[in-house]
């Protein structure tokens, strides 16, 4: 069963089939960072995502693939024809910069799909990343949230420009649909609903 919610023309539905295959780099040595005995949950901006060996060893299947940013950057020549055929998407981790992707590929609309992988739901960097992808870099394709995606963050994600939400596997996507409607008239202008309330309505 799919747990993927997609927004189309303002209507949210759970899609049964999704052809995109998420490609991950093979697991390497995981360095566990600790602070005062507690495991550190967040990677800092600028941290390396994968070693060159891991990137080189990443297996990319045929068909529609969602590549880790590191793999796309290092091996893009391999995927030129598939990119042209609309079979390549890219996913970023929250400590990676949207600017890194843009520096390598200025026109983002060659990708039918860009995703942000959210390791911890409390990591609000994903919101700014989505906002930048949409409003600054003009990305019009599908923008998907992956990972620790929970219903109580959906309303915010939607307004930052995400239009697809892969709800965490142990949660009900059906239940999550309701949270997309938490607020009917937000105050501020943002990526989705650009005008602030006072410009939308006579107050």
């Amino acid at each position, binding site marked *: 069963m799919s747990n993927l919610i997609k927004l189309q023309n303002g209507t949210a539905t759970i899609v049964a089939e999704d052809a995109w295959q998420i490609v991950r780099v093979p697991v390497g040595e995981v360095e566990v960072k600790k602070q005062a005995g507690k495991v550190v949950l967040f990677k*800092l901006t600028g941290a390396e995502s994968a070693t060159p060996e891991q990137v080189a060893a990443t297996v990319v299947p045929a068909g529609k693939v969602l590549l880790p940013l590191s793999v796309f950057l290092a091996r893009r020549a391999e995927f030129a024809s598939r990119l042209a055929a609309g079979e390549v998407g890219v996913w970023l981790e929250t400590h990676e910069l949207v600017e890194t992707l843009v520096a390598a590929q200025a026109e983002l609309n060659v990708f039918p799909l860009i995703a942000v992988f959210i390791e911890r739901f409390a*990591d609000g960097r994903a919101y700014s990343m989505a*906002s930048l992808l949409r409003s600054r870099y003009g990305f019009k394709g599908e923008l998907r949230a992956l990972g620790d995606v*929970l219903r109580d963050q959906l309303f915010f994600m939607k307004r930052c420009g995400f239009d697809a939400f892969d709800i965490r596997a142990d949660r009900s996507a059906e239940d999550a649909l309701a949270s997309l409607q938490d607020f009917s008239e937000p*105050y501020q202008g943002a990526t989705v609903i650009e005008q602030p309330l*006072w410009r939308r309505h006579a107050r």
Partner: protein
Amino acid sequence: MYKYDEYDQRIVNERVAQFRDQTRRYLAGELGEDEFKPLRLQNGLYIQRYAPMLRVAVPYGLLGSAQIRKLAHIARTYDKGYAHVSTRQNFQFNWPELKNVPDILAELAEVEMHAIQTSGNCIRNVTTDQFAGIAPDETVDPRPLAEIIRQCSTFHPEFALLPRKFKIAVTGAREDRAVLQMHDVGLELFRNPAGELRIKVWVGGGLGRTPILGSVLHEELPWQHILTYIEAIVRVYNLHGRRDNSYKARIKILVKALGIEEFKRQVEAEWAFQKEGPNTVTQAELDRVARNFTAPDYAALADADAGFEAKLAEEKGFANWVKRNVHAHKQPGYRAVTLSLKVTGIAPGDITDRQLDIVADLADKYSFGELRTSHEQNIILSDVKLGDLYALWQEARAAGLATPNIGLITDIICCPGGSFCDLANAKSIPIAESIQRLFDDLDYQHDIGDIELNISGCMNSCGHHHVGHIGVLGVDKNESEWYQVSIGGKQGNDASLGDVIGPSFAADEVAGVVKRLIDVYLENRTPEERFIDTVRRIGHVPFKARVYADRQPGKQKVEA
């Protein structure tokens, strides 16, 4: 008072419904502890030592009598019959039950109140000068722009999960009573020589484990850009602030790491894209919001009253109270009055449901139904006629609300500390009480004069001890409660952070230490000097010498 329109009300109502569902799912086990935590915090709900604590937002400290009566009702119905004014002008309830919190929020919504973003890693509710709109030294009323920021930051989708809390303060007066430099962003409103409204923007201040005063980020920002500029700051922070260590996650650490020049460069680069965007504020919108702050219908009065003068000469108790608790007002014939919540034996800032009802009555009778909370944890009746002061004093005195100690040594700013707070290293309320007892004599207090004494139960610094003229901080040493004392902190235009005077003290020593500090001041002061001035002139050495004179670590305790 800010009056809600239908949209304000709808947003608050929708929030209540949302939180009711979240609480239901949490209690049903559908939502994990970790997942519920940021949700409840952004509704002001902490899980404390003994029970949850609910922090209710009081934007700009402004309250109407109907709201105060509602708070009294909540204290009576859902709590143990009292509430607490926090150091950020909010109201806190210490004993609500989690299952009742959605009902409490629904009751608050009936009187245009909420608990939105009073805690959590988000843009917190915006604060201003507690005398905003009535202070004689005010050049710009900060409330309309503060409200515009509040609305923009309420459920701002991009900034809902920041690395850490984010506090904004706004002032438009010559004297900085909002402690701008202690905030993540401080906004100083002023008019330039051409009469145009401009904003001096400070960034990167904050207390806590690494206290830092803010730096200037923009000297003269045109007010129309207030929101886009703040959004640029917060976006840089959201993307680049540290998330791996909560002690290093405030914006002050990022600003320090990058340096103010590089931080400014990044903000300006970001702002270049957003400037002139839809969140740019127009004059019409500023005027509209300003109109929603209703002004009282003042009478045209002379700024003198014969009856008042007579009572002042007759009754020393009244004169003392006027001297300490009555403040200048920009409207002739009116004054602002502080009702003291600093009574010896009662936790600073605590007020009973009965007193809340009385305060509401007093506000209706003497102050157009309007009042305020102060960051010194007192209540202010904002618009009282000179001729009514004597009658008000008598009624307030009968209710235990007229202690004439505002700005004196017993007007202690104190966090809830170990009596309630889960994070505390040590209790703070009993320390405040021991000091209040030692300095109980009013003449003595008046002789000591203006002084700020702040107590925090841990490094989170909710009692703002770094900026107290005398600061007391609870520390944990070998599992027992100790207190570090600092002197020389100050808030306001010439803000400074206090310096620790030396090794820490046991709980029963603290009042004696304060007494010695005061003795050194009284012996050395010039006639016009306040405690802080003497500390600044003669330095810390004489104070330290006196406090530690006969102290051998671990043996001789400091005695009062």
